[in-house]
């Protein structure tokens, strides 16, 4: 089984629009969190490089370099997005995965983020900052909730 975080938020926009903003405007709504930075030189600006399966989520750093957070594994516009997620400090074999689902609920979209695979990052790893497992996952989940709230605010200024 996988240690996972699931968060969800309703956003007052259609699934196609929310999906487009998630992938196309991530640099505008993403809010970096110093506890969960991808590289020692973060934060940079997030972007999906390309479209469809095989596209890459990257963080463009001030140095001009781009750090690859992960490859897109599923890209179904308006419905579902799955991509890999790793920090620069992850050793080989450490890999987490993010699945985002966009479901219509009336005029709104229920956006669900499932971030799984944290059992591959051992206790004591620098990415966990010494937090006990549950607290680490909870703090990470609260960050995801804040990110979705940022996406909502971006769509509904």
């Amino acid at each position, binding site marked *: *089984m*996988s*240690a*996972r*975080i*699931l*968060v*969800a*938020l*309703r956003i007052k926009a259609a699934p196609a629009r929310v999906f487009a903003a998630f992938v196309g405007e991530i640099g505008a709504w993403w809010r970096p969190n110093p506890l969960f930075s991808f590289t020692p030189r973060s934060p940079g600006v997030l972007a999906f490089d390309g479209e469809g399966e095989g596209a890459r989520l990257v963080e463009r750093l001030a140095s001009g370099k781009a750090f690859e957070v992960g490859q897109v594994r599923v890209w179904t516009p308006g419905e579902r997005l799955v991509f890999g997620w790793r920090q620069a400090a992850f050793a080989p074999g450490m890999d987490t995965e993010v699945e985002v689902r966009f479901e219509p609920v009336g005029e709104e979209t*229920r956006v669900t983020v499932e971030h799984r695979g*944290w*059992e591959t990052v051992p206790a004591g790893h620098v990415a966990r900052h010494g937090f006990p*497992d*549950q607290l680490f*996952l*909870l703090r990470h*989940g609260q960050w995801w*909730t804040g990110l979705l709230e940022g996406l909502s605010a971006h769509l509904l200024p």
Partner: protein
Amino acid sequence: MPRLTSALCYKDPKAALKWLEAAFGFELVLLIEDGEGNLAHSQMTLGDSHVMVGNEWSADHASPASLGGKNTQTVHIHIDEDVDAHCQRARAAGAEILAEPETQFYGDRTYRCRDPEGHIWTIGQTVQAVTREEAEAATGLKIQGWA
């Protein structure tokens, strides 16, 4: 703004998440699972309110299913429309209806039910504006703080 949140204990909290969505329309907004797939923490929302759904995480936290069905606290859900339809939905999801929808002297139409682990829930909808004087006359009670 301060607010209250109820945290409920279940022997099988993951089943409870599914049930509460099916029966009451609660939406899961946060779920944390450990490497064995056990629920560590979760929250569900209804409108601007939420409840936490957890396991029997200490010797002093138990589901009614572990206590012969005893409840020491119950949660009340207040809705804006169609409490009868709400009851039908809960019944269809497997709720045991302890009291069918009935309009009370204070103007709310309410029903009471028991979920699969024995938590008792009350659900109400305001259907009539009742004054304090009318409520006192109907019950013979002396009422303070009538909103």
